[in-house]
């Protein structure tokens, strides 16, 4: 190799960055995988079921609720008939599975296949691998959530005979962003498990275990901890308020709470506070709807909280991965 060749190599720059190549390949893999089809069908079916029953419930109350703001959005927030879930809570409950499903074998799968040493021997930066995988995962989940939501909205239009207004559409789009960020938290967590645990099966178990604990017992933990930190004194009504505040603060450490608050405020224009509301505050209140920007303002802290959780967890996965030894 001549000196001139070396100089050419030095200034050599890529036409397509490494992470994009990785992301493209991972995205293709995901889309062609059995788990993508299975999850899409599962989510699609359950979503259709919730919306079908919700639409039935909505038609029954249609005379009183016609012309209230966000009528169409109730499709997502109302539960009806035999189903215990609205579309919203159902996504909140099942979305983590999506995130974990596309993250739990991201890195240890490459290790198990023996492709990681070959991958890092190519002229890409090492973080291109994990960044590309994360981007691909987000993309696939975004795709699934959008497809399911649009499907649901379309069915809703058919069943209810009303079309969403502009502000409702904007709210839906905002909610989609929030949902993808929420799933991103779990994708990051799944990726972290896949970096730390050598076996994909162990990583999946741990990730699902943590999700179950957070989703099912998170509220319980918050309550118990709040009772310890600021116990309720029967003679002092203010202490009850303190207790409730502590509980709320603690439960907001969980992304599930943040997601639920964000979604309910975004999809229900009538929600004016995601914090504690006393009866005194509600007394004489005029029921009115917030504009989209006001609702967004309301949930901004929650959105930032979710983004922060996603970034922090992904950063942990990133750092661990960068410090790991890659060998055959």
């Amino acid at each position, binding site marked *: 190799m001549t000196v001139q060749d070396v100089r050419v190599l030095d200034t050599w720059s890529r036409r397509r960055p490494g992470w994009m190549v990785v992301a493209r390949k991972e995205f293709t*893999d995901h889309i062609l995988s059995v788990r993508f089809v299975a999850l899409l069908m599962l989510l699609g079916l359950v979503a259709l079921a919730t919306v079908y029953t919700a639409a039935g419930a909505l038609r029954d109350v249609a005379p009183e609720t016609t012309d209230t703001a966000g009528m169409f959005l109730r499709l997502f927030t109302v539960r009806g008939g035999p189903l215990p879930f609205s579309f919203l809570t159902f996504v909140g409950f099942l979305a983590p599975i999506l995130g974990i499903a596309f993250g739990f074998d991201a890195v240890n799968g490459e290790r198990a296949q*023996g492709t990681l040493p070959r991958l890092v021997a190519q002229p890409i930066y090492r973080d291109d691998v994990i960044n590309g995988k994360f981007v691909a995962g987000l993309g696939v989940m975004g795709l699934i959530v959008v497809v399911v939501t649009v499907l649901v909205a379309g069915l809703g239009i058919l069943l209810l005979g009303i079309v969403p207004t502009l502000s409702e559409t904007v709210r839906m789009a905002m909610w989609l962003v929030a949902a993808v960020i929420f799933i991103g938290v779990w994708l990051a967590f799944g990726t972290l498990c896949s970096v730390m645990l050598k076996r994909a099966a162990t990583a999946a178990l741990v990730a699902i275990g943590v999700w179950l604990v957070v989703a099912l017992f998170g509220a319980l933990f918050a309550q118990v901890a709040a009772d310890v930190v600021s116990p309720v004194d029967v003679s002092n009504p203010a202490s009850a308020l303190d207790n409730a505040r502590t509980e709320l603060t603690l439960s907001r450490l969980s992304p599930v709470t943040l997601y639920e608050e964000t979604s309910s405020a975004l999809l229900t224009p009538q929600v004016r506070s995601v914090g504690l509301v006393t009866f005194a505050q509600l007394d004489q209140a005029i029921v009115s709807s917030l504009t989209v920007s006001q609702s967004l303002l309301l949930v901004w802290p929650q959105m930032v909280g979710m983004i922060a959780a996603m970034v922090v967890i992904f950063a942990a996965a990133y750092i661990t991965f960068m410090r790991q030894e890659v060998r055959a």
Partner: protein
Amino acid sequence: MVKRQIGYLPDTVGFYGQMTGRQNLRYTAQLNDLAAETVEGRIESLLARVGLADVADRPVGSYSRGMRQRLGIADTLVKDPLVVILDEPMVGIDPEGVMEMQSLIAGLARQEQRAVLLTSHLLHQVQRTCDRLAIFVDGRILAEGTAGDLATELADGRSTFEIVSDSNDRDIREAVDRVFGDSGDIRVVGSRRWRVCVSADAAPRLIPALVTAGIDVREVRDLGADLDEIYHRYFTSAGEVTV
């Protein structure tokens, strides 16, 4: 980036099992940011060269170990590297595959003028394939040079013979001891097989010594520059041989 000029084949090479051989190579090409127009032809010719052209569009999951290994060679060559590093390329493949692999590797170095660096524990194959070798023990180079050089250097003026005989162990040891004394070194290497190591100038006296002692000699073979033997004698601790 240096990695653009170096092709590396890990000892346990892995591919994405659900993708075809061609797709795997294409992915490597994309990671190297090679132009799609030029790379398809190269992939095609590489697949033909490693004998995988007719299975190129089957998923790698269905490949045998030898096929994966050959795909691995093609994979390291996709980027047209100056230096090729092969880690144990001939482990776990059948003798036929080893022959093919050896001629492939020799072709890389001699016809295409690439620097090939390979590590192996299979010393006979190293001896046959490589121009220069180095023996590593515990991370240090102990000896370096052509196979012939190494043999002379390491043999330290001594020759090794393998004896096949029906006589018993004690008689043979006595016969060797009588002629060579302490300078002779003898050990059992199998049923009715012994290895004798004597100083090179005294070597012609070995067979007469055995015959005078009345030993039934079936075979005496000069192991000469045999890497396995040299290696065994000098470095019983675990080591690695590199070109």
